[in-house]
């Protein structure tokens, strides 16, 4: 019996199959109109259809439904007086200085946002009882308008869900698909809760239909699992109900893959760096991937536990240009897949990062995508020459400049997930993947003083690999808003309710609760603050509060033990690792050997402002067995990526197939440098 991870991307659908201990990789062109077609075709090509017990899927169906505004016809019920909360949002305009800015219209138009007379206060006391007549009137309106899916979001419903529950019940009886805010996100802050619930209502029917048809097409005995934004998988049925949890499905799988690659070699602290054609995703992994509680899809906020993945619009296809102030800029505009970089020879004329890499000799025209697509070096040079003319230097200098400016954007992204979260990137390794990641990662690591870099065996399909090994995971949360000094049994009671809810739902996914790991946590803050820190809870509020003080001090430079602390939310995370994820790290040190290059190619590197054209040995990755030594400058080509190893870096192929590269210089001890002083 085998397992398969299938990651649907914009251009390719990637497959990684695990069967009887061996791994097989496959790519199909994606079929955006019906992503299932590419999946089924790939499974047929793989020929093992009958033998998969488990298919784990990273999907963009929910994300695309929002971005392309192709979700269900959605209605919204709110507390009387608050139907515009969804449209007003936080009353800020998206951009400070843009006189032509626009805001996207809400996913629910105003005429389908209906108000219900009901109101609770912050303690859940009824100020106005639920007016069921209003709900019935709303049902009539929705029916006439052909609305399919309804979001229900009443004020303070997370304190006491009775009103919302009753309204949802009436709607469900009337045949509507319903997303109630106390089920989707029982957390305070009405706009974010409404937005999240509405996004769920908008995408759930689309997701449900897609997953049901995919599941029906799979052979009997193959269970379908879906990746969520939190880096864990759930059964398709659960994902369809809570589709809002899958918005970062693909990128999250990449992070899980990166963590596995690192962990297999004993690296616990790494930054995942996934550079594709139009954008780059980065995420900090400190044992576990960093998480955050809110993200955006399009311009709509979604509050859900999700991996803290930061995306910047800089990738291989990003276009270089000069602004009115004379600075060289790269991106966010991208040549995309069509026409693509000038080197693709499909009509693109503007210089991109990919073109710069061709000029520098980093990308070899005949070795791109395993030789299935030849790059046009002349066109690349021509495009970059137009930039060089303006700079007044050589084409190679211009090419390096383009790469450098793109790297500045990526450096910024890595700083956001590390420095802005209070972490020093120098204490981390970098896992580089995606089609373009291994090309620039060494230089980027040098800039950030990151001493170690890891390149997985298949950089272009790491996300699909991540799907295979991702654990089962579900998250539960409820706002309680209690002083930490309050009667601890109230916290215990809140947790008991979450555990009971979870245990019930696990059965539906076929998970045995006693096998799963239940982790409790509290969201704490100083009374009066309005952002929370999450700390683990092991039955003692006192211990959690002390941890909170320490964490606050570590992150923000001060903790105040004299200040009262508020328990905002209780959280429960249920996980169950797959057996694949438990593969032991090989403790053998590989025996080094020096591989023969397949040829020698000219390539350009730089030290400071000076350029060097060097003859660089090129290796073919499939020939690099365990222990192969690589000394920069060197190039490694493989089907789905090119690894550029600049002078100063050297690497070895580990037993897991991952190449570990290290900078020649010892990393500077951060404590000794001037930077850390006075901090």
């Amino acid at each position, binding site marked *: 019996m085998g397992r398969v991870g299938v990651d649907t991307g914009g251009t390719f659908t990637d497959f990684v199959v695990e069967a009887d201990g061996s791994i097989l990789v496959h790519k199909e062109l994606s079929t955006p109109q019906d992503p299932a077609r590419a999946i089924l075709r790939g499974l047929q090509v793989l020929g093992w259809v009958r033998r998969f017990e488990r298919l784990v899927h990273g999907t963009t169906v929910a994300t695309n439904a929002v971005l392309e505004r192709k979700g269900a016809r959605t209605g919204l019920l709110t507390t009387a*007086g608050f139907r515009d909360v969804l449209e007003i949002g936080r009353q800020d305009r998206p951009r400070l200085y843009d006189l032509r800015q626009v805001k996207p219209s809400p996913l629910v138009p105003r005429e389908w946002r209906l108000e219900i007379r009901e109101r609770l206060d*912050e303690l859940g006391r009824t100020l106005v009882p639920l007016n069921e007549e209003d709900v019935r009137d709303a049902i009539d309106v929705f029916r006439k308008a052909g609305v399919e899916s309804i979001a229900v979001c009443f004020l303070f419903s997370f304190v006491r869900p009775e009103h919302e529950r009753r309204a949802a019940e009436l709607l469900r009886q009337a045949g509507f698909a319903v997303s109630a805010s106390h089920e989707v996100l029982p957390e305070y802050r*009405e706009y*974010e809760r409404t937005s999240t619930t509405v996004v769920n209502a908008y995408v759930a029917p689309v997701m449900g239909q897609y997953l049901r048809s995919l599941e029906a097409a799979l052979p009997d005995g193959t269970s379908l699992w879906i990746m969520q934004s939190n880096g864990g998988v759930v059964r398709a049925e659960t994902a369809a109900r809570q589709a809002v949890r899958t918005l970062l499905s693909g990128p999250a799988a990449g992070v899980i893959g990166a963590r596995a690659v690192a962990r297999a070699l004993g690296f616990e602290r790494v930054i995942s760096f996934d550079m594709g054609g139009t954008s780059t995703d980065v995420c900090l992994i400190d044992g576990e991937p960093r998480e955050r509680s809110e993200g955006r899809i399009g311009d709509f906020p979604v509050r859900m536990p999700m991996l803290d993945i930061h995306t910047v619009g800089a990738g291989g296809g990003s276009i270089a240009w000069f602004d*009115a102030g004379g600075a060289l800029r790269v991106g966010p505009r991208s040549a995309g897949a069509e026409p693509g970089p000038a080197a693709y020879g499909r009509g693109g004329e503007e210089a991109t990062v990919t073109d710069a890499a061709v000029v520098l000799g980093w990308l070899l025209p005949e070795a791109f995508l395993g030789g299935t697509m030849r790059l046009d070096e002349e066109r690349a040079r021509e495009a970059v020459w137009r930039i060089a003319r303006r700079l007044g230097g050589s084409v190679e200098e211009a090419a390096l*400049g383009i790469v450098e400016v793109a790297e500045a954007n990526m450096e910024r992204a890595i700083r956001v997930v590390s420095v802005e979260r209070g972490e020093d990137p120098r204490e981390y390794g970098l896992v580089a993947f995606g089609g373009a990641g291994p090309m620039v990662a060494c230089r980027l690591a040098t800039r950030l003083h990151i001493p170690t870099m890891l390149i997985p065996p298949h950089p272009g399909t790491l996300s699909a690999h991540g799907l295979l090994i991702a654990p089962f995971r579900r998250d539960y949360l409820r706002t309680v808003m209690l002083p930490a000094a309050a009667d601890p049994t109230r916290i215990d009671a809140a947790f008991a309710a979450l555990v009971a809810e979870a245990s019930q739902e696990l059965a539906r996914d076929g998970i045995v609760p006693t096998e799963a790991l239940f982790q409790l946590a509290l969201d704490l803050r100083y009374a009066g603050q309005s952002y929370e820190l999450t700390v683990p809870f092991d039955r003692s509020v006192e211990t959690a509060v002390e941890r909170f003080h320490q964490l606050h001090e570590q992150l923000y*430079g001060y903790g105040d033990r004299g200040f009262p602390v508020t328990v905002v939310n209780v959280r429960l995370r249920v996980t169950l690792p797959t057996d694949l994820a438990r593969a032991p790290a090989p403790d053998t040190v590989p025996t080094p050997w020096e591989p023969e290059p397949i040829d020698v190619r000219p390539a350009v590197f730089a030290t400071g402002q000076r350029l060097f054209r060097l003859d660089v040995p090129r290796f073919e990755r499939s020939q690099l067995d365990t222990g192969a030594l690589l000394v920069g400058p060197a190039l490694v080509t493989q089907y789905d990526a090119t690894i550029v190893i600049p002078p100063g870096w050297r690497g070895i192929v580990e037993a897991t197939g991952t190449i570990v590269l290290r900078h020649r210089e010892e990393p500077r001890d951060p404590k000794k440098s001037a930077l850390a002083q006075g901090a």
Partner: protein
Amino acid sequence: MHEPIPVDPISLAVFDAAVRAIAEEMGAALQRSSFSPNIKERLDFSCAVFDDEGRMVAQAAHIPAHLGSMPDSVRVVLEGCGPFAPGDVVILNDPYLGGNHLPDITMVTPVFLTDEPDAELLGFVANRAHHADVGGISPGSMPIATELYQEGIIIPPIKLWERGVLNEAALALILRNVRTPEERRGDLLAQYAANRTGLRRVRELVTRYGLDRYRQLCEAVLDYGERLARHAVAQIPPGTYRFTDHLDDDGITDDLVPITVTVRADGTSLTFDFTGTAEERPGSINTVETVTKSAAYYVLRCLMPEDAPMNHGVFRVVRVIAPEGTVVNARPQRAVAGGNVETSQRIVDVLFGALAQALPDTIPAASQGTMNNLTIGGTDPRTGRPFAYYETMGGGMGARPGLDGLSGVHVHMSNTRNTPVEALEYAYPLRVVRYQLRDGSGGHGSARGGDGLIREIEFTCDADVTLLTERRRFAPWGLQGGEPGAIGRNLLIRRSGAGLEEIALRGKHRFTVRAGDRLRIETPGGGGWGAASERG
């Protein structure tokens, strides 16, 4: 003018990204560690990096009102607080000494290469945050006042930390003069932490580039800002453009308060001359000159690309003439609480009004032109502790040529977020009855002005309320035949016998309410653009 520094376009782009990241990382640190919703949720703060001459190199601004005034804070500190040593941190809020209005407390940290006593000065980092209360005659410190002394504690530039040692006595003095001292203390510590982040990062950048190269690149970034600004100015046809608009009143008298500007464009630079503007007033609508400059820089910035840098180089292309003793350049000790938030908006309106004559296809009609400041104070019956709540409200954005204005957003000089209803009801003895768009308040036109907002609040205890609002008398104007937006309204709704009585309130008003009273604020709509008959 100086000789341009030879820095290539690549190094320029890379350095500009790096130095802007410092200001942003400072902002992230401030937001995360501050206490009050005003800073954390509403993002009412700014952070900036300066060179050793006090010129602003980068700013992360959420609030345009801080654009021109942060540099003045640093200038005042540079001139008045030296010599500096590593570990010094200067605090100030005095509008007549580098501040803009008292609730905005600024912290300036000189950055040295190391913590050694003889280390070289690299520059400064500074941040400014709006505190929900700094004392004075009204909770929330946005009072209807006639003198600065009534508006709160005045902090001239002083070293709150000297060589790394906190001046506990000065801090105690400040905290004893505010209504919510614990919260203030937390926010001040957060401001300190933000500057520490900035200091660390500037040192890192200098280490990466070397000091000489760092200084060279700072200079190049300023020139870069100047070039982008000149490019924008070059689009304005040379000429002289005049415009006058009015504030409703100063909160004390009913006298007209005209604001007049003459814009002179010569193809390479701009002069904004406010000669003809009303004399300074007894009420709090006066602004200090730095706020007027902020409004001017904001308008210029709107004509530049969205992602352009905001630094001292940009300031070089515009000259602001604000005659002393007028409401746009008041003298000590005039009250200024409202000038920063309200008059600044009208200054933007007149600048755009004048520029619309030069750039008719670019400039929008008047937006709501107010921040609708509301402060509520009292004692929370649930805890027995005093509370001070400050909120500003969005409204209609003016219609743009061929494009409707946005509804229910903050415009121009502000972009603070609202306090969520549920957060508000947890934190204060208040209940929000409704929060909605104000239908039909946007001005008609071929492009419509955005609609204002309605927020209605019920008080669950007696409280002291101050309203500091504008455009309750003079409506946001339309352009090219577009109609004006609706004026704003403030209503007190009070039980009277069996019914409800609606009492219309002045735009600027301080009053007390009883438990059960309601306050309804309806914010102005934006002006329309083009004749309504031409709407497709």
